[in-house]
């Protein structure tokens, strides 16, 4: 570790523009967890996330000149990630969907022997309901929960209006509630 302060994100991006792979590594390290989480939120398939994340970051490196610097970098990065997830889903549509039961168990430390069977079942139902949502609803939900992004930021990432974000979020949550209630009853 050097003695100087850490380079700012702006400096790192400027260096990536010049092809500096060390700056690129630092950008990846900064955002890898968030991109993995976002991709999982949209794809709902832990097995696919790493491949798509690689694709996202390689696009960031090779097309960094497309980032005009007018918006925040993460807005652009999340847009690249959501678009890559959408493209990936399109490719997968030809293949049968992965059954939810085959997905990896959640590594959140909440589900373990201490958790009651009922709570685990409710969580399973919530995840199944989220997985059944249309992709554009999942994208909005994932972006909202990713960093608590504001509605306007979500609108910037998805290039839709603020009203569209609000209505998608409202509908997604209403759909989840309906599905959960129908399961519980």
């Amino acid at each position, binding site marked *: 570790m050097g003695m100087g302060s850490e380079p700012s994100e702006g400096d790192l991006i400027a260096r990536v523009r010049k*092809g500096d*792979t*060390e700056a*690129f*590594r*630092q950008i*990846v*390290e900064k955002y*890898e*967890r968030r991109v*993995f*989480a*976002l*991709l*999982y*939120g949209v794809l709902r398939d*832990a097995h696919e*996330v*790493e491949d798509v*994340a*690689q694709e996202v*970051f*390689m696009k960031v*490196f*090779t*097309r*960094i*000149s*497309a980032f005009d610097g007018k918006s925040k970098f993460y807005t652009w990065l999340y847009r690249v990630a959501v678009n890559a997830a959408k493209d990936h889903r399109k490719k997968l549509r030809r293949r049968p969907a992965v059954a939810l039961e085959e*997905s*990896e*168990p*959640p*590594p*959140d430390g*909440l589900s373990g022997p201490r958790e009651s069977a009922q709570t685990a079942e*409710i*969580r399973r139902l*919530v*995840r199944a309901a*989220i997985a059944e949502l249309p992709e554009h609803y999942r994208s909005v*939900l*994932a972006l*909202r*929960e*990713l960093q*608590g992004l504001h509605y306007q930021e979500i609108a910037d990432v998805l290039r839709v209006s603020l009203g569209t974000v609000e209505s998608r*979020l*409202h509908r997604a*949550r*209403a759909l*989840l*509630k309906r599905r*959960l209630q129908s399961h519980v009853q």
Partner: protein
Amino acid sequence: MYSDDQIWRYVDGLMEAGDAQRLEQQAEADEELQARIEQCRLIRSEVLAGAPEPPPGFAAELARRAAAAPVLDLEEARRFLKRVLVAAAVLAAVGLALLAMEALPEILRAEEAIADPLFRR
């Protein structure tokens, strides 16, 4: 009675402090409201729960791959495209001028023929 949107605003932390306090007070005495808040929190927590962690060395591996990747310089591509378009426009203009020069005698002859009284008859 709180609407779902109001509860979501509270869970999202978007509700005014005073309103949020009133909702919390009511939820203490209202089990149904409490359950609805919990349901929203559960949905929130499950949206990203279960996301895999990046494998160790993920960033370093990508940096290695990036070293061999061709970088698309959009500015350079734009300049190149501009040069190609200018060259195409110049070529098209020259071509049209040459065609016009080649066709000029024909046009003049045709005009003369039309002007000929024999042709009119």
